[in-house]
């Protein structure tokens, strides 16, 4: 039986040749994402913005009548509502901010929610209420803090772990790759204005874990090769390491990708945003472990001498015992 080989043997792509243009591209993407987040903002869902959110499915229609919904609900006098497609074309999420002074008054929120539902149902008999969330301003603020804290803590913790297991340069490289992945994912949500909820933060945390897998596999091979090929030029060594692990990188990204694609298209509509974030993060993460994590090592001065086995206390004792020291 002939087995499938996605990456032919002895593949030798000179990735690092293009490191400067790709690095510049990455920086542009990161900056662009930050600008997008700054200008467009993220479409915070009720988790982070607080307020009242009603999710509905129009069971008798292909697409939800979003413009008409927006107009009718704006007519209730609670300001401009956020009406978005949520998952499927016939599902919407309707978000209404709570009027000033009632952010922490659940009864006011409840009343608004009931009014919204009644208004929609009066015009569309096929509207099915899937969910109704009220989050007070205080709790939303806590979720925001928790999310920021969790993201920072996760990024810091894994970077420190890499630093301890490898060298500080590797820790910085991994951190940079993570900032890259997280920024671009956020940028995508700023551009598309898809709802940014707790689920998306969960997706980003998962991206942090899995994007790092690639980085670690490449780093592990770089470390091994640094010890093996002491005379090799650094660029060539990185290329060798990336190429040697390329089959694995492609294969792993592909398995995760083909597992996620059915979920993206046939899965529960309300998971769409989360799965989309993970899918994009998967690509960005694979790219960043080749073009961010690797070249940064060169620029931070990792050389083939960086991994000369340093004399540990045990070695020293051994030498003393043998009378060499």
């Amino acid at each position, binding site marked *: 039986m002939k087995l499938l080989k996605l990456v032919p043997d002895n593949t030798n792509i000179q990735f690092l040749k293009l490191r400067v243009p790709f690095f510049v591209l990455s920086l542009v993407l990161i900056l662009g994402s930050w600008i997008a987040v700054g200008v467009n903002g993220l479409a915070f869902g009720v988790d982070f913005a607080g307020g009242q959110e009603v999710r509905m499915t129009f069971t008798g229609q292909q697409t939800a009548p979003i413009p008409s919904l927006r107009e009718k609900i704006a007519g209730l006098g609670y300001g401009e509502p956020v009406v978005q497609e949520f998952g499927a074309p016939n599902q919407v999420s309707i978000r209404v901010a709570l009027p000033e002074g009632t952010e922490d008054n659940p009864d006011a929120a409840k009343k608004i929610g009931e009014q919204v539902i009644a208004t929609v149902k009066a015009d569309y008999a096929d509207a099915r209420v*899937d969910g109704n969330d009220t989050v007070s301003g205080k*709790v939303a603020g806590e979720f925001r803090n928790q999310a920021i804290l*969790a993201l920072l803590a996760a990024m810091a913790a894994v970077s420190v*772990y890499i630093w301890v297991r490898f060298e500080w340069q590797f820790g910085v490289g991994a951190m940079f790759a993570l900032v890259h992945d997280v920024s671009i994912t956020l940028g995508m949500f700023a551009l598309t204005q898809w709802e940014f909820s707790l689920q998306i933060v969960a997706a980003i945390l*998962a991206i942090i874990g899995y994007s790092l897998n690639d980085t670690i596999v490449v780093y*592990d091979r770089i470390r091994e090769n640094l010890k093996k090929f002491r005379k090799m030029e650094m660029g060539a060594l990185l290329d060798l390491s990336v190429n*040697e692990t390329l089959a694995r990188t492609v294969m792993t990204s592909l*398995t995760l990708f083909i597992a996620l694609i059915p979920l993206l298209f046939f899965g529960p509509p309300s*998971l769409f945003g*989360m799965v989309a974030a993970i899918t994009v993060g998967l690509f960005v993460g694979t790219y960043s472990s080749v073009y961010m994590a690797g070249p940064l090592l060169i620029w931070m001065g990792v050389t083939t001498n960086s991994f000369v086995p340093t004399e540990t206390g045990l070695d020293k004792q051994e030498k003393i015992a043998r009378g060499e020291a």
Partner: protein
Amino acid sequence: MLDFPLWKKLSLWATTLAASLLALPSLVNVAGLDWPAALPSPQVNLGLDLAGGSHLLLEAKAADVRAQRLENMEETVRQLMRNATPRIRIGDVSTAGGELSFILENAADIDRARGLIEPTMQGATTVREWELKVVDGQRIVLSQTEAGVNQAIDDAMDSATEVVRRRIDELGTREPTIIRQGDTRIVVQVPGLQDPEALKALVGQTAQLEFKLVDLDALPTNIQAGIAPPGSEIVPYAPGTPGAGSAIAVKRLGGIRGDNLTGAQAERDPQNGQSVVSIAFDAQGGAKFAKLTTENVGKPFAIILDGQVLSAPNINEPILGGRAQISGSFTPESSNNLAISLRSGALPVPLAVVEERTVGPDLGADSIRKGLIAMGIGSLAVIALMIATYGRFGIYATVALVFNVLMLLGLMALGGFTLSLPGIAGFVITIGAAVDANVLINERIREERARGRKVIAAVETGYKEASRAIFDANLTNLISALALGMFGSGPVRGFAVVLFIGIITSVFTGVTLTRMFVAGWLRKARPNDITI
């Protein structure tokens, strides 16, 4: 590395099969069949986002607890001073600024007053709950210590949780979750509940019933302006009652609370057909009630629920039987709710709903079905790719993958964890990522074979060299899953749990289990060449 003695093989199989079998009840359930009741049946709980239902986050305000304690202390102090022999006269009582302060008319009483008050400052615990200061030799100031307030909040929250549980149990719903969260919060989750509003009405009602004497000396104009005579307070009528929109003045102290009830029942008044709630006091409460009504025949007293007057009838005659009937423009539902609330006891502190999530039941069933379909397609695609790429080694990886999913489900059931909607995404990610270990190992074996190593040596090196990267990669994954776990409860927590357990089971099945399969085959077949 490839040496598997019999005991090791047996224990690995035992672990794998035991954990996988635990998944069976959940699978049978998902398939829509009934699991025999006689068998042990740990089952994965479905989160609210899959089962439908209501989630409420209730919060108590610390300020309410402080105010309540202060009021209780004032009453205690007044009683102590009044009952002292000879009586200690006090004046200028104030509770402003969260402190209780008063002047002794006779400065010589100061030590006697201290001696009476000090024993009440220590609660059941060793915590010092109050601070006593003497100002100018004649004024006593009692302030609450932070430790005392915290202790009180803690106690109040414990009993509030209990009260909420009793009330929800009366609804007769299936498997509600009621847990304290943090210092001042309670999470209530009721799966499959059809009417979330009833739930909210029930847990949101403090049900603090009070009987207070009406202050007949208060001027109507003052009441309207909200100015209460000394020792009295203005209480508005509840909406829907005949007096709605107006208020009356009642004496702040000397009333009784409806804490000592043995029962409460929603009834219909046979005379006018109105919904009423009849209550029965216990012996102590009955005695107090009898005393209050005996001493105040002919005067009106107000029946106050959660700070709003229901009615203010005249006491026509002493009520000695320990029974009373409350009317207040109830609907049959609201009288029933009040009866439940009174039966299960008043909440020691008012609770506000700060987060509420309701999920319709249709959405959840739809999500499970779509999630399963997507998971099935994804798994088949991964399996096909693995077998096409690694042949025999791909089949081993596939078997490991199946056990991985079963063990993950089984361990979740065993641990009583909840499967949420994002948890389904977690399962799919686990399926896609679990084979990573096998990819790493198999690619390494390929490499080692290409370098000319013999079969056994190549397999051994492959497992050994890949293990390091597998370990590091999965540990960082565990770290990010832990960061995810920070999100207290709810769907995201469900995602973190799946990832966390999935990482552990995938290392076990992907590395240890496949190594045993490969070792067994190598030993038996002794191949000179392998297709990989």
